[in-house]
């Protein structure tokens, strides 16, 4: 499968105007690729994830096109998208722990969900059970209510439900944020397993925790202030990033074995720009240590080497 996104824009409507949360994203994902989507809070990654499957007011679609498996995804049309949801594109939401109806037994809810989408629960049940085994949940959970499960268990349950119909694209939105480290590892491994077993073709893993992506993702895309900054394979992003923002991001990660007295933990000074009236040109300009004159013009997101995209004037110069 492949995902082709072109110039996708989605804004939030507010009293004072549109907040340009996602301002022109263009990228592709290959079959079987797990792409991590990382960035600071408010950079637009969740908006990007949601815009691909479920846009609700006050978010609204502005422009852009999305193609999944060479078929156009009508992301601007809530009704038309329904045929794709759950079957071709699915999501594990940020609020996965609260995503299940508290007054319905899980099995009942799942069956009702499937039936409502014209899928026989009976035929799906054996597969469902197999997957429960895979994530180490007993079959009894189907007879339990959500409050009877722990946070991690609910998370895994939602993972199973969301991927039950083998979607082409799975969007995993901050699924490890609320978990402890060992569960995080387990969930990360489950994601890879799902892909390897072809339950899911490709994934977008949204998180602000790059360390998870290091273990899970094939490629990582970094976003900043509503725009794409860099996209490359995991190894390159971690070890030899090109965009100044990515470089600072990676270097601000604490490394095991390094003590504070030897090397200070560096952050990135400054704040992200408000997206109500974003600055012209490169949005990282004000905090960038290597900004220069050309940066008042907005840099395009260009492939500087195979499968490595960057939006930075400095970097274009090097390869041109």
């Amino acid at each position: 499968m492949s995902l082709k996104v072109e110039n996708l824009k989605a804004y939030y409507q507010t009293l004072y105007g549109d907040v340009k949360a996602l301002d022109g994203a263009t990228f592709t994902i290959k079959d079987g690729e797990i792409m991590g989507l990382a960035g600071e809070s408010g950079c637009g990654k969740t908006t990007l994830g949601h815009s691909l499957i479920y846009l609700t007011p006050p978010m609204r679609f502005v422009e852009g096109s999305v193609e999944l498996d060479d078929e156009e995804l009508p992301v601007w049309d809530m009704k038309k998208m329904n045929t794709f949801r759950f079957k071709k594109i699915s999501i594990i939401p940020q609020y996965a722990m609260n995503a299940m109806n508290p007054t319905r037994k899980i099995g009942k809810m799942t069956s009702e969900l499937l039936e409502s989408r014209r899928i026989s629960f009976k035929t799906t049940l054996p597969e469902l059970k197999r997957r429960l085994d895979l994530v180490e949940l007993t079959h009894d959970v189907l007879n339990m209510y959500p409050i009877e499960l722990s946070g991690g268990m609910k998370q895994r349950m939602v993972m199973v439900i969301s991927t039950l119909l083998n979607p082409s694209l799975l969007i995993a939105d901050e699924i490890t944020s609320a978990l402890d480290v060992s569960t995080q590892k387990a969930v990360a491994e489950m994601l890879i397993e799902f892909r390897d077993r072809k339950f899911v073709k490709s994934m977008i893993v949204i998180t602000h925790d790059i360390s998870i992506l290091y273990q899970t993702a094939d490629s990582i895309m970094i976003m900043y202030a509503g725009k794409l900054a860099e996209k490359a394979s995991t190894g390159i992003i971690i070890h030899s990033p090109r965009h100044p923002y990515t470089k600072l991001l990676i270097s601000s990660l604490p490394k095991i074995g390094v003590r504070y007295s030897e090397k200070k933990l560096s952050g990135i000074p400054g704040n992200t720009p408000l997206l109500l009236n974003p600055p012209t040109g490169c949005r990282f300009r004000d905090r960038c240590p290597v900004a220069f004159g050309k940066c008042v013009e907005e840099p395009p997101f260009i492939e500087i080497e195979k499968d490595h995209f960057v939006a930075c004037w400095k970097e274009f110069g090097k390869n041109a």
Partner: protein
Amino acid sequence: MTIDWLIPRFMPGNPVQVLLARAGLHAEAAKEMYSYYTRAFGLDLPIWKQYLNFWNALFHGDLGTSILLFPQPVIKIIMRAVPYDVFLLLPSILLSFYAGNKFGAFAARTKRLDNTILPLGYILTATPYMWLAILLTWALGIIFRIFPIAYAFSPSLEISFSWLFIGDLLWHWFLPFTSLFMVMFGGWAIGMRNMIIYELEADYSHYLEALGAPRKLVRRYAFRNAILPQITGLALQLGVIVAGALVTEVVFSYPGIGYLLLQAIQNQDFFLIQGCFLFIIIGVLLANFVIDIIYIIVDPRTRIGMVGG
């Protein structure tokens, strides 16, 4: 006759007794309130005796003798009136609950519907029970002469199980029922509309929608979850409903406990008043109890919480 006349005169201190009777009803009403009970007990020693007598008589099923309808025992009078009340209240409460909630949920579907139904609901629930009763009486009873305007059945008929009687009964029943129904309907519709909106904004609703579930399913879940606080609300509303029923009965001279109570008040028949109140309170408690049970059945969360799961 002289005794009739004497007894109210005889009761300057009786309001106090009535107060104590209230206190007694309290202890019965709130089972946790044993402390209150003992406190009330120990408070007024001289009248202790009267109080004790009251309880004594109560346990023997004797609510005293009515002053107004002397010499009939109060309990008999009340029992005669109770069926009419149940007949009136039960359907109107249940039906208005059902219809009102369904309607409220319906209103939350589209903005347009919401904008028309919402003010309507609020106006209905703001309508004083008796005024609506008066209006209905006037419009349908007097101007259009479709329905009778008083009593539970025509005075000329005898109580029997004949179709004629039942038809007549229903005919008389319709107006009071309608007026109660309409006001309560408004209340439920409003409440439900608010709860549904809240539920539709919940995480699980969004999840279902993100997975492409049809609106019907999402709405069904929202409805089922929104009903729960409504059920609790029903329990709380009972006191208000009783007052409304009382007033409606007055307008229609419908021989329920409300009407009886009014007559008792107007004639200072304390025993009757006591008796009526006792029944009303028991009724409300009973209803509360039933509602609690229903709630536990319907909401799995409380069930699990109770088992300690």
